[in-house]
Every structure is written in structure tokens, then in C-alpha cells.
């Protein structure tokens, strides 16, 4: 934002320059965030296809790339249905609120040391606060629809989001204790120096647990499988957006995928070094910084993990959901806050083995998973050929 501020002529009043720079940033950000879901939905259908051994979209455009564009255009040509007895004002306001809540988090996402709309000193708190705006939107949607499924879906989603917000906050606290700041930029700066100084590998093996708690809670907060009982199609039709059609429906989807991106990006900032490259040598090519590339690569990898989990794990039941939040994640979270607090005091720079234990183990684990997956795929392909023969 400061960069654009500098570009504007200096003889304008300060407030015009500030607001102009802010709006320019916002236009870039909102465009990127609004177009993103087209890509993510396509990616999700392709990933789903891959995991279920089918092809996925392939007719519209090369490799089906334009499928989601076609879907979006189709939704724009659909009727708006306001169900009988619905509270029309709230019914319209709800998807707007959900979208606004999801998009506003973009303000603090750091894509590079200077590529950030604004580095708020309460950044992490702001992300948590703004992303809970969409909870209000979901309840509004469920309440205003005058539909029993929608109401149940909304109540469940509210209960789920508030329950999982607490473990998420607990794992945030540990990072805040290590860094001593709520600013996302400072969290990233504290992880300078390549792969081995990422917070995921600090206090090994404690921080990986924190990361898993945070990511699980994040998954639940964007209503993704296996935590998708608010829209469990086998029992609630579509949950809170049962009655929404056309562009309203598109808005809910846009918000969902945007929230996935935000959760993934925040997880990358907190645990995977944000815009730092895995090795300092990869940080820039010539004079071109690769910060945005690294952050987006990490965020997209985590989004892929979310899709992977969706097609791997079965949906939880509502009581199991509450069990995980309150009896597993919350006690773990509280313990971690105390534990990391003590460790921060006694080992301010982390354990002695932090630089060389965590990341090789993690890489080895991923390598192992990759090999297993490849073998499984090869086996199933072979079997399919045998069955056909």
C-alpha cells in the first residue's frame, strides 16, 4: 500500500492519497480473491476425479479449464428465489455478510516484505475477528430462509465454528508467545533463514502438534469435510444454503473457497515461513523477489491437503465433532500454551536440535507417503486392467 501511496501525486491531500492507495490495493485484492474460486473449484473437481479414479471435467475448454467459468455464468442467469415466509432483508444480507467476512481477511495477508495491503499490529487478532463475521452471516442465512434444514445447518455450523475457534486461538497464542507480536509480517520475519527456522520445526516435536491443532480447527472453521455437517447432504440437503439460488449460491461458494485460502495462507504464515523460500538461495531470481510465489505455493499446497482430506475421511457425527473440539483439541491446546510458554523462557532460541531434526523427518515422511501413494495408484490401475480383461 505504501508503494502505491508513493506513486500518487504529492500535491493531493493526504486522506485522498491514503484512501486512493487503499482502494487500489483493495481492487487488486478483491479481483484476485473473486477470481480465485474459479480456479479452486476446478482444482477440487480435478483432485476429486483423480482420487476416485475418474477424469473430472473435460468438455468445456482445454482439459475442462473453463468449466467453472461456465458454471459461474450459468448461475448469473438463474432466477432468484425468495422462499415463502422468508425474512427477505436478512435473506439478501446473509450471503453479502459471508462474502465480506471472507474477503476482508485479505487486508493483512503478507505476500512479501512489502507486498501487503497493510501490516496491522493486531493482524492475527484481526484475522480471527473478521473471519468470525461469516458465522453471523451463516446464522442469518439459516434463520431467514424459513426452512428447517437451513435452520439446523446454521445452528450446527455456528456451534461448530465457535467450538473450534478456541483451539485455534490456543495455537495462535503459542506463536504469539514465541514472536512477541500479533503482526503477520513480524511472524514471518521471525522465521528468517530457510526451512530449518520455520516455526513448524521449532521445539520439535511440539510445534508440529500446534500446527496440526491449528489446521484441524481451521478446517472446521471453513466447514470443510470431515467437519462439513452444517451442509451434510445426506441429512440436511445443503444446510444453511438450501434455499439459495443463482448468484447468492455463488457467493456462498466464493466465500467458502476464499476462507479455505485464508486459512491456508495464515497457516503458512504461522508455521511454514510465510513468504520465505525453503532455502535462502531460492528467495529471488536476479532482483525479482519470489515472496508471493512461495506464499501462494504453500497456501495452495495446504488447500490441496484440505481437498485430499475431504476425499479421504468420512464425515463426523455432531457428538463426535463436539468431542474432538472440547475433549481432545482444547485440553491439548491449553497444555501446549503452558508448555510452549515454559520452553520460550528456558530455550529462547529453540532446542539445540531444531535445525536438523524436524525438517528431514518431515520431508522423509512426505517422501514415504508419496511412494506409498504411487504404488497404490499403480496397483489399482493394474487391477483395473485385469478386471477389464
Amino acid at each position, binding site marked *: *500500500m*505504501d508503494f502505491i*501511496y*508513493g506513486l500518487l501525486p504529492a500535491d493531493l491531500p493526504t486522506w485522498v*492519497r*491514503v*484512501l486512493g*492507495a*487503499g482502494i487500489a490495493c*483493495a481492487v487488486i*485484492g*478483491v479481483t484476485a480473491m*473473486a477470481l480465485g474460486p474459479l480456479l479452486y473449484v476446478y482444482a477440487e473437481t480435478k483432485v476429486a476425479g483423480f482420487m476416485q479414479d475418474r477424469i473430472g471435467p473435460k468438455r468445456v475448454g482445454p482439459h475442462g479449464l473453463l468449466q467453472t467459468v461456465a458454471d459461474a455464468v450459468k448461475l*448469473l442467469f438463474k*432466477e*432468484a*428465489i425468495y*422462499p*415463502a*415466509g422468508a425474512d427477505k432483508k436478512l435473506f439478501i444480507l446473509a450471503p*453479502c455478510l459471508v462474502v465480506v467476512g471472507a474477503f476482508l481477511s485479505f*487486508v493483512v495477508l503478507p505476500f512479501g*516484505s512489502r507486498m501487503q*495491503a*497493510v501490516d496491522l499490529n493486531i493482524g492475527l*487478532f*484481526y484475522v480471527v475477528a473478521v473471519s468470525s463475521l461469516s458465522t453471523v452471516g451463516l446464522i442469518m442465512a439459516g*434463520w431467514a430462509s*424459513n*426452512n*428447517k434444514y*437451513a*435452520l*439446523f445447518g446454521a*445452528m450446527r455450523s455456528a*456451534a461448530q465454528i*465457535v467450538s473450534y*475457534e*478456541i483451539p485455534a*486461538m490456543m495455537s495462535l*497464542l503459542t506463536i*504469539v508467545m514465541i514472536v*512477541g507480536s*500479533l503482526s503477520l*509480517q513480524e511472524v514471518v520475519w521471525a522465521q528468517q533463514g530457510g526451512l530449518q527456522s520455520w516455526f513448524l520445526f521449532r521445539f520439535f516435536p511440539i510445534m508440529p502438534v500446534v500446527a496440526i491443532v491449528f489446521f484441524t480447527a481451521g478446517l472446521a472453521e471453513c466447514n470443510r469435510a470431515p467437519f462439513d455437517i452444517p451442509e451434510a447432504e445426506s441429512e440436511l440437503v445443503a444446510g444453511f444454503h438450501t434455499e439459495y439460488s*443463482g*448468484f447468492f449460491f455463488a457467493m456462498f461458494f466464493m466465500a467458502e473457497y476464499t476462507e479455505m485460502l485464508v486459512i491456508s495462507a495464515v497457516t503458512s504464515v504461522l508455521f511454514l515461513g510465510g513468504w520465505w523460500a525453503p532455502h535462502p538461495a531460492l528467495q529471488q531470481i536476479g532482483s525479482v523477489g519470489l515472496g508471493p510465489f512461495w506464499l501462494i505455493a504453500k497456501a495452495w499446497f495446504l488447500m490441496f491437503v484440505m481437498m485430499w482430506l475431504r476425499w479421504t475421511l468420512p464425515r463426523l457425527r455432531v*457428538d463426535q465433532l*463436539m*468431542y474432538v473440539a*472440547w*475433549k481432545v483439541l482444547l485440553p491439548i491446546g*491449553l497444555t501446549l*500454551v*503452558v508448555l510452549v*510458554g*515454559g520452553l*520460550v*523462557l528456558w530455550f*529462547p532460541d529453540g532446542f539445540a536440535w531444531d535445525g536438523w531434526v524436524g525438517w528431514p523427518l518431515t520431508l522423509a515422511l512426505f517422501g514415504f507417503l508419496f511412494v506409498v501413494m504411487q504404488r497404490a495408484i499403480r496397483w489399482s490401475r493394474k487391477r483395473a486392467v485385469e478386471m477389464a480383461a
Partner: protein
Amino acid sequence: MPSAAPSASYLTSHSAILAFLLVVVGFVAVNLVLWKIIRPSRFSEEKLTTYECGENPTGSAWIQFNIRFYVFALLFIIFDVEAVFLLPWAVVFREIGPLAFLEGLVFIAILAIALAYVWRKGDLEWVRTEDRQV
């Protein structure tokens, strides 16, 4: 850190949020208006009935739901307020040192006792054993 630039003062940096809000609301509004212009609208009474898997909807949708939702909402408020109190504590944690750790420990211990109490009372179960017996 881009703090040297003139726009980094407290209020102006927060004005970016305002700018984002304006642009997002504008984006949503433009799209809704566009949609309103190009969409067809042929309403019929049948089409507007709420969806209940093809049955005629019975009664209002604003029905009674499980009281457990309220219990969990209450619990959430307790622990969320705790998190809000702990955030500033975590920010200055390193500066204050062992004293902050001790005080945080006392605070978290009280809440852990509260959690244990609620757990013992069975309020963390979605279906309470007491309710089941009745």
C-alpha cells in the same frame, strides 16, 4: 518493514480496512444489480414453497432446537474471553519473563479446573447421560 513511509500512522493504516470494505461491498452490490438485470423471474406459488424434499412444508421453520447449543455457546464465551485476555499476555510474555509465566499459569489453571468441572458434570457431551436416563 514498511513503517518509515508516511502512511503508516495508526489511523491511516487502518483506513485500508475501510477501503477494502468499500470495494468489497461495491463488488457485491454491482454483481447483485447485474444479476437482477439479466436474470429471468417467472414466479409461481409452488416454486416459492420452502424445500422439504418434495413434501408440503408443515408449520413454521422456526422450531425448537436442541438446548445443548446454548450450553456450548456459554462455554465458548468463557473460553473466548480467556483467549482475549491471554492475547496481550502472550504479546508481552518475553519482556516480562518468569513472572508472566507464573501468572498465566494461575489463570490457565483456573480455567482448566473450570473445564474439568464442566467435563465432570457431563456438559461436554452432546447427549448427556442424565438426559438419556430420563
